[in-house]
């Protein structure tokens, strides 16, 4: 493999993911504001925030694990991004490492960042951080189950475990998997808000009780890295979902359209929902989403 090409395309992909993710988060703030009858910040406000954080004169550090926690997260996001197909038109520019990993590996790769975050938050000594982490892990046990059920159904039905393979299935048949496997799609879609941790699943940050939870001791360059990571990771999750269920995209315009449409689901749901308690969140995910997941598995088995 050509290292220099990977370096070039990888950087371009990363920057694309960063810009798109940041814009989406800005749009979310704008939409939230308009729904609540406020003017709201400009769409580019998040770029300003990141720049401000990176140029902060001082930052506070409680120890080595806190120092490396944001790196752990951003390394996870960028590595995951490299393994996800951006476009489905066979263009070699965005290939990166797409054909060198599969979904099972991605599932495990995507949680590495959370572990780093958990350890970093744990070292700060802030009790809110540790409480937030336990809540986040508990919630993860909740939403991973319907999400994995959906993926297992698709993987066994189409006898491939790669994202590229599932994408090929959709390109060749011309049907999106969300239409041919509706139950798996519903299960996965209901798990998405848990991954984004917007209301009603914002129990990890929980501004009112935990004072933003795990990130409460991170500031300056650390918080800047985390915001950067948040933007990239949002793009990763949306693109992965679009690739698996919505047929991918043949050019960047379609990609933006589809990912934005998908992104609106957790955002709009969050706007009209109060916060769940942790156990309510897990019970929610183990209720209807798992039911649809089981239907999806049965559909795949028949």
């Amino acid at each position, binding site marked *: 493999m050509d290292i220099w090409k990977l370096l070039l395309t990888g950087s371009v992909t990363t920057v694309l993911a960063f810009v798109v993710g940041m814009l989406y988060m800005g749009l979310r703030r704008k939409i939230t504001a308009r729904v609540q009858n406020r003017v709201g910040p400009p769409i580019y406000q998040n770029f300003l925030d990141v720049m401000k954080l990176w140029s*902060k*004169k*001082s*930052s*506070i*550090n*409680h*120890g080595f694990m806190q*120092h*490396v926690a*944001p*790196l752990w997260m951003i*390394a996870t996001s*960028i*590595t995951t991004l*490299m*393994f996800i197909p951006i476009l489905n038109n066979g263009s070699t520019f965005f290939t990166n*490492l797409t054909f*060198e*990993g*599969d979904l*099972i*590996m991605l599932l*495990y*790769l995507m949680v*590495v960042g*959370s*572990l780093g975050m*958990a*350890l970093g938050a*744990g070292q*700060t*000594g802030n*009790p809110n951080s*540790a409480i937030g*982490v*336990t*809540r986040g892990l*508990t919630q*993860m*046990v909740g939403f991973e*189950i319907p999400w*994995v059920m959906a993926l297992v159904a698709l*993987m*066994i039905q189409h*006898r*491939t*475990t790669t994202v590229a393979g599932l994408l090929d299935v959709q390109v060749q048949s011309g049907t999106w998997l969300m239409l041919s496997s509706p139950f798996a799609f519903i299960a996965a879609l209901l798990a998405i808000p848990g991954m984004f941790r917007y209301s009603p699943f914002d129990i990890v940050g929980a501004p009112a009780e935990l*004072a933003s939870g795990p990130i409460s*001791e991170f500031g300056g360059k*650390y918080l800047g*890295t985390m915001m950067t990571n948040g933007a990239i990771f949002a793009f990763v999750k949306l693109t992965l979902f679009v690739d698996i269920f919505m047929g991918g995209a043949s050019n960047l315009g379609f990609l933006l359209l589809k990912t934005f449409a998908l992104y609106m689901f957790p955002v709009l749901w969050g706007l009209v929902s109060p916060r769940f308690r*942790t*156990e309510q969140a*897990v*019970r929610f995910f*183990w209720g209807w989403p798992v039911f649809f997941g089981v239907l999806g*598995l049965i559909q*795949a*088995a028949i």
Partner: protein
Amino acid sequence: MSNIIIILAIFGWAILTYIAFRLNKTLGNIFVGLIAVALPVYYFTYVPEDYSFQVMGLTLQFGFTSFSSLFAILVVILGALTLLYSIPYMNKKDRLGWFYLNFLFSIGGMLGILMSKDFVSLFIFWEIMTWSSYLIVIFSGKKVNKVGVKYMVYSAIGAYAMLMAIVLINKWSGTTNISHFFETFADYSNGAKILSSLLLLTAFAVKSALMPLHVWAPNAYTNSPMSYTSLFSGALSKMGIYGMALVAIMLYTNTGMKFFGEALAWLGAITAVLATFWAVFQTDIRKLLAYSSIGQLGYIAVGLGIGTELGVMAALFLALLHGLFKGILFMAAGAIEYRTGKTDFSELRGLIWKMPVTFFSALVAIIALAGMPPLSGLISKWLIYEALLSSEHYFLIILIFLSSTAAFLYCFHFLYGVFLGQREDDIEDVKEAPALMLVPMVLMSFGLLALGTFPGLIFKHISSSMSYLGFNDVTWEMSVLTNEWGNKIYLTHLNTMFMVVFAVFFVIITLVARKKTRRVGTKDIANAGEPILAEDNYHFSQDFYKPFWRVISPVMKYRIETFYNSFANGIGEFFQFFRRVYTGNGQTYALYVVIFLTILFIVGATLI
């Protein structure tokens, strides 16, 4: 020369060590260090040959097969490292000669099991291993009744099951040769097949703590000294896996009795889920690790139960890997116990500042346990999922996924509860563990790191040992994994990518505003404007996963131990009835004699 000499040498050395400790402690420690070095050197340089002799009409045969030598590697390496670790760890304790006698006997017993080619010698060595481990479980002298008796009863159940199987097999086939049994198994009647294989499976399942025969394990793992528990959980329980693999593959998969294999896989999956849930709520680090061990062995049973090539490969890989990472974790728990004297989460915190090497070894082991890249745990998890996917086990894979996601909870609890959180003054005089305790942990961490990118180092041995189980031409590559559908992952690319991005950002984040980064203590935190006083500590250790408990408590009410206890109570009450008759009072017995004679007299009188 025969290879039985290794075992005799170990037993002989065990007795010499015992004598040495009676004479002088230092001399004894030297003896232990010598065998720890000699064991791997001897094993890896010596080419063993088969050996057999006749005794009382039975032929006893010894020799490693390609399958058992895979487990022997684990026993030898882990045995040597735990012996080294024991020297400083046990140094302050009494009766060391007795401890090392049993320690070496269990290593010898394990190697004997792996060398046995007939059931009788297998049984003898199995019992040597069980007895020596029992004597170490009760070595501390605490909870002998509660823990020791439980372990003994379950081991006895296993031993009787095995003995019965051996007697039956000898009766049916006239020989106790193991490979002869496997070859002729297909000719047995259905009843004989089911009975003999289930009896053997019971014996092995007890040792590997498969539910519902796991009840002894958490307490036995906790009660023995941690240096031995590393071996106990890492290698000794793998003897159960060794036997289980033979039963599952040779008897079930290869003879078309797939149903029993499936049942074993489901038992394994249930074990994995429930043991993981219990591990999440433990408040003692040793108990947490013990339950986690039971759960991990559940995964191995799943891989063996489904019996496909990838499944067996996953099971064997995880068996070796579990020896490494659980070895490290129990050693880390031992190091913490050695330096602080505490093992409860409510008493420990902030040790990362005092025991950094222990922390990083434990971190490596935890990442491997959780199955995250860039370490080798990912490979075992990946193999087992791919095996389940390609053999279309839709619901089994969900259970395994539930278990391994819930495992993140206790992984975090272990690292956070012991090493992180708010520092307190009571750890100020804690020191890093002695070098001899760190060396085994660090060595094994490097092993985990290397296997994370180059699993081929172990796949080489696994593929040759799988040919014994009937899987010929197992394909493997040094750092590329392939599933049955041809999907690949390239570990070198994944791991290099991760590490390079990590390193780049490490440089950036360290250099940006480097001079202005303030390093503060863990009590200098954002706390709604209220400073934390010196005497306060806000470390989070109580009710750690309370919300999760609220979710799953309906399931956790049903414990097999409750059933066993009520069964035991029922038996007890049944015998209480006899107790009323046999009161132990001489006068009562005299009365019985009088009553008996009277009845005899009356009956006799009426008859005449």
